[in-house]
């Protein structure tokens, strides 16, 4: 199935946004405003719910006119695009991922999708999943650079990579017996380490100045 690449799922959803002349600000603007204030770090709805590698939300205002002799045309609705690269359930379907979103991030989803036509709310999980799947488009071609690992497996691998790099650097030239003992200690430490946080907060840094544009 084109939606799947190995163990990764390419979810593409287009939800029509309410077109209400009486609404002020307009519904698309309310979505944009909410998204502008939404955390992309550990508090993100996609960090709280399991299974998202990368995801985006985009308000698509219209199709694009590329110039004559192409025909100029316009959409009657604006659409909210939800593009997610995520872990499907064991059966390869998207249901458990969508249910996870509804369970862990229902309030955020309601704040965003309540501006879309026909949205039933996240509290009715079955209706929510039905709605999202009704908005889903079949991905025609999906490419994933790493398509055989889940989000937890990747977080764990990044943690292991750093620990191994530190270990190799600090254990050069060590006697075999001590090296083996220290490696076993590394194994015990990594086994006991908690799962690294998803989307760990960006480290603050000093503003770099003096570039070409200054």
């Amino acid at each position, binding site marked *: 199935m084109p939606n799947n690449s190995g163990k990764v799922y390419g979810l593409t959803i287009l939800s029509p946004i309410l077109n209400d002349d009486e609404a002020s600000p307009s519904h698309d603007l309310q979505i944009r405003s909410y998204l502008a204030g939404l955390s992309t770090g550990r508090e993100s709805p996609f960090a709280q719910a399991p299974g998202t*590698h990368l995801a985006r939300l985009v308000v698509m205002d219209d199709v694009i006119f590329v110039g004559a002799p192409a025909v100029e045309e316009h959409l009657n609705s604006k659409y909210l695009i939800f593009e997610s690269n995520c872990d499907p359930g064991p059966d390869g379907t998207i249901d458990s991922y969508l249910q996870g979103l509804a369970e862990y991030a229902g309030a955020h989803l309601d704040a965003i999708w309540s501006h879309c036509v*026909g949205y039933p709310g996240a509290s009715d999980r079955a209706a929510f999943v039905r709605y999202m799947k009704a908005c889903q488009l079949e991905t025609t071609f999906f490419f994933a650079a790493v398509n055989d690992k889940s989000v937890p497996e990747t977080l764990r691998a990044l943690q292991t990579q750093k620990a191994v790099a530190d270990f190799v650097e600090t254990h050069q030239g060590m006697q075999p017996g001590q090296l083996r003992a220290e490696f076993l200690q590394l194994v015990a430490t990594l086994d006991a380490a908690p799962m690294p946080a998803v*989307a760990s907060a960006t480290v603050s840094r000093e503003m770099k100045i003096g570039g070409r544009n200054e």
Partner: protein
Amino acid sequence: MSNINGKVYAMNAITPMKPWKTWVLRLIFFVLGHVKSLQQDLINLSFIEFARWVVVPRAGFPQFGNGQEPEKLTYDYLLFFSNFNGTWNQYIDAFSAVLSKGLNLIWQWSEKFPGSVPVTLFKEYIGRVQFDTDYYFTAYPHATANDLKAAHAVQASYDDLRSRVNSLSDAEFADAYMSFVLQVQPNLGETGEAPVVF
């Protein structure tokens, strides 16, 4: 608007296609999906984490009634979403230089596509059909696609050594550890914040 999160850039593009041409494109994608060797250039462009093309038929936009007017369109539309590392210019330049034939095969069915070479007109076209991302999330803001591949390679080597450590003598472990270091050393680069691009 947030096309960038950490080391990843989110690109969205939409191009119109005459409906009959979308069937040609579907066939091309079908072949591309089933003949993995044809994906090699895409794999070699190792700064792409995920990419997808979605053909939206002119009558295929989701409709729910409830006052929503049906779309009345002449064209089908090709949506393109990419998650890549680096800058927009680096991405388009590399696409044009490495994947020009493949890109032409995919986008030549779209209206007014000028070809991926020369790159100037290609960039102008992409600039015209691209639209911005409102919210962008990544589970690994400090890692690139190559970082992820490297981390999984280290994990595999580590798991192998770990599974054997208890059955090895100290001397055998020293040899196994040396082999382990030789295996993982190309993949021990450190992840971190994205560089500031001026």
